[in-house]
């Protein structure tokens, strides 16, 4: 047993309202630079829908992820090492700009500078790629909320898998939102595809990163990732991807997408897993067994043997404690209601989802039945084949059983908690019918519905005793094209602004937790709203005070107390 720690996320899809706040705040933090205009580390898809980039789940076409060979070994779907190198000069499976969308801006200048005239001037869209006027035909969420669904939804690769059984009758259709970030997989195909070895999984917390100095622009990782969550910066010629906001989680703070999520539906915590068993688990023959294999790689943080092995592997005590309190472990392995996205890609994704009950509840309610009655809901879960099978194609390689189980638990929790809230006599058989106790349903309800801040995020800070210091991003909001962060075109090509700057762990933490501007070091020109805790005026927004009083260490306003 080789115990390793992995940061993971769980999203409770019932609560996603599709507001895209996560995408926008993520973009502001990480990808508001030239070269990555089209890049959404976090994006929110409406399902059924094409996804972003369009039809990325169609692996016959894009060849992402792993396949199991007839000899039971894993091979990159796009081909082994030799094949990858032979195809390096032109990668046949690389999505083009048109599979994402051509980013644009508007010609605002005409609005400001138009002379007095009879017609109102209009700002025409202008391509950020060619600089020419263009027609906007697609974007990262063009089919949002089923917009244009009769035309686009039939192209959804997941829907296609359901085949003839689905007649898209739109008055009867269902819809939910699926926020997606990089899965920070245990068996990442992107890392395996990178010819220069510039992509890596961090040994401490499992975050998958691209070494910007090591990347040589072979763009194989984009093909390798079945979720298409590595993007190519077309200005710098380097790959970029979701960083799990490592500068923030190192300081014990949740990622930007999680922190700003309006539905408070994201959970972040630790998994302990057995690195020696990952490959075997990812290679099980039957795709329907992948979910259980993936769960079995994750270790029970209460198990004394695991704890001993983790200590031997050098995992610090506060991390072990965090692993025991981990909300993501509770949802994936203790209550077993969270499911991984597309386990059949065999990358062992570490962002899990609680499937949405709402499509079922909506139908039940619309047909005049009681949407909080467990037996009605159970019946509907069995009867409504299409939503359940669709969810199964997403989360369990097509096996409807685990999805049905998760939905039944959610349904049971719904009706049990109604009895609790209305002070009715408690029907314990509801809990028993899904193999749980009433107490467990209450705990689950507390985690899912009340969802206190400090229960959603249990993130141990990174350890810096060894004299290590961490990089953090700072002031990227100023990195608009041609802005202070942008290097512009130099003799060797374009500089992409500053993805991260070097800063000490203590400064990050101090800034995030400080409640007084005066506590902070001066002279930084950028206003950094990302690490701003909301408790004091953001650093640098106002000129420094003259009387720079005594620098106290603001412990008061850290984010922990919020709920």
């Amino acid at each position, binding site marked *: 047993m080789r115990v390793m720690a992995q940061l993971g996320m769980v999203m409770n899809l019932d609560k996603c309202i599709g507001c895209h706040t996560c995408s926008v705040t993520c973009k502001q933090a990480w990808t508001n630079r030239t070269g990555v205009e089209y890049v959404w580390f976090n994006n929110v898809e409406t399902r059924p829908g094409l996804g972003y980039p369009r039809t990325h789940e169609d692996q016959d076409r894009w060849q992402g992820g792993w396949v199991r060979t007839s000899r039971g070994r894993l091979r990159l779907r796009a081909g082994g090492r030799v094949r990858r190198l032979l195809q390096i000069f032109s990668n046949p499976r690389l999505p083009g700009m048109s599979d994402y969308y051509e980013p644009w801006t508007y010609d605002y200048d005409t609005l400001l500078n138009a002379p007095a005239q009879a017609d109102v001037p209009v700002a025409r869209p202008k391509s950020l790629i060619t600089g*020419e006027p263009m027609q906007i035909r697609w974007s990262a969420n063009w089919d949002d909320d089923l917009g244009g669904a009769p035309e686009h939804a039939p192209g959804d690769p997941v829907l296609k898998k359901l085949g003839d059984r689905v007649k898209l009758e739109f008055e009867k259709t269902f819809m939910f939102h699926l926020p997606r970030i990089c899965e920070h997989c245990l068996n990442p195909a992107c890392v395996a595809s990178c010819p220069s070895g510039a992509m*890596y999984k961090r040994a401490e917390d499992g975050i998958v990163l691209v070494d910007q100095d090591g990347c040589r622009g072979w763009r194989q990782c984009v093909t390798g990732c079945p979720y298409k969550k590595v993007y*190519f910066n077309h200005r710098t010629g380097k790959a970029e991807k979701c960083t799990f906001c490592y500068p923030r989680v190192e300081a014990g703070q949740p990622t930007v997408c999680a922190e700003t999520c309006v539905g408070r539906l994201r959970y972040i915590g630790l998994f302990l897993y057995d690195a020696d068993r990952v490959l075997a688990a990812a290679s099980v023959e039957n795709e329907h067994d992948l979910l259980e294999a993936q769960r079995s790689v994750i270790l029970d943080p209460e198990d004394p043997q695991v704890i001993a092995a983790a200590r031997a592997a050098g995992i610090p005590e506060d991390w072990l404690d965090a692993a025991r309190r981990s909300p993501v472990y509770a949802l994936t392995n203790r209550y077993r209601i969270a499911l991984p996205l597309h386990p059949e890609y065999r990358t062992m994704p570490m962002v899990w989802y609680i499937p949405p009950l709402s499509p079922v509840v909506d139908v039940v309610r619309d047909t005049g039945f009681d949407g909080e009655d467990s037996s009605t809901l159970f019946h509907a879960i069995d009867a409504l084949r299409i939503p359940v099978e669709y969810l199964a194609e997403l989360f369990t390689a097509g096996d409807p059983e685990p999805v049905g189980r998760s939905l039944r638990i959610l349904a049971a929790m719904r009706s049990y908690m109604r009895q609790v809230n209305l002070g009715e006599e408690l029907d314990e058989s509801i809990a028993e019918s899904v193999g749980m106790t009433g107490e467990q349903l209450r705990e689950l309800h507390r985690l899912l519905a009340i969802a206190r801040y400090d229960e959603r995020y249990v993130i141990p800070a990174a350890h810096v005793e060894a004299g290590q210091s961490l990089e953090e991003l700072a002031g990227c909001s100023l990195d608009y094209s041609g802005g202070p962060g942008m290097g512009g075109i130099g003799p060797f090509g374009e500089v992409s602004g500053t993805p991260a700057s*070097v800063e000490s762990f203590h400064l990050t933490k101090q800034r995030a937790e400080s409640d007084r501007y005066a506590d902070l070091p001066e002279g930084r020109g950028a206003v950094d709203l990302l690490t701003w805790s909301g408790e004091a005026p953001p650093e640098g927004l106002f000129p420094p005070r003259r009387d720079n009083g005594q620098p106290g260490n603001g412990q008061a306003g850290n984010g922990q107390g919020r709920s």
Partner: protein
Amino acid sequence: MNTVLWVVLPYICLTSFVVGHFWRYRYDKFGWTTRSSQIYENRLLAWAGPLFHFGILGVLVGHALGLLVPESWTSAAGISEDAYHAVSVSGGTLAGLMTVTGLVLLVYRRRMTPSIFRATTVMDKAMYLLLGAVVAVGTYNTLVINLLGAGHDYRADVAVWFRSIFVFQPDAALMAGAPIAFQLHALLALGLFALWPFTRLVHVFSAPVGYLVRPYIVYRSRDPLGAARAPRRGWERVGS
């Protein structure tokens, strides 16, 4: 004059090549990339990229054989001059034509696709100019002089001169006697070498052969250097 062209210039250019790469690697790892343009354009590249690259790699192997292996070795191995000539001209013609076709397509694609043209730097243009000239004159030598014409045994002069540079006993007289087209090819190539480290051609030196033997999944610990590291290009601090 001969000394300047065939002794001084080569050493200047090769110094630029070596020191330039060293410096670029130290100072600008962030800029060390193919700067792939495939995301802008796919269809032409699917032909142009492999044609050019397989062609030029063939050309490189040919040059290595032709320039580095002395004539005496091949004859000692029992390969007659005629046989050698046949192999080198046919191989060279094939590789040369692939390279030229690929290169023409690459340049055409770069010029005619607005998005790629917009992402083309001055360095790219200078590089293509020199690379194009080297390839053009080189193909002329192979096709017109060696295949169709009387032929010139470059292994008696150019190759010997080339090797003489690396043993620090440069022999300018050898080159002075070579045909003008061969002289031009060598001069242009020297220019390309001088420019090489400052262009996207640096990607050639990171050809990822290590990929064939390394384990699939790479683990790394958090960067222990952190703040101690001096900021490099692309990593400058914001607002400081």
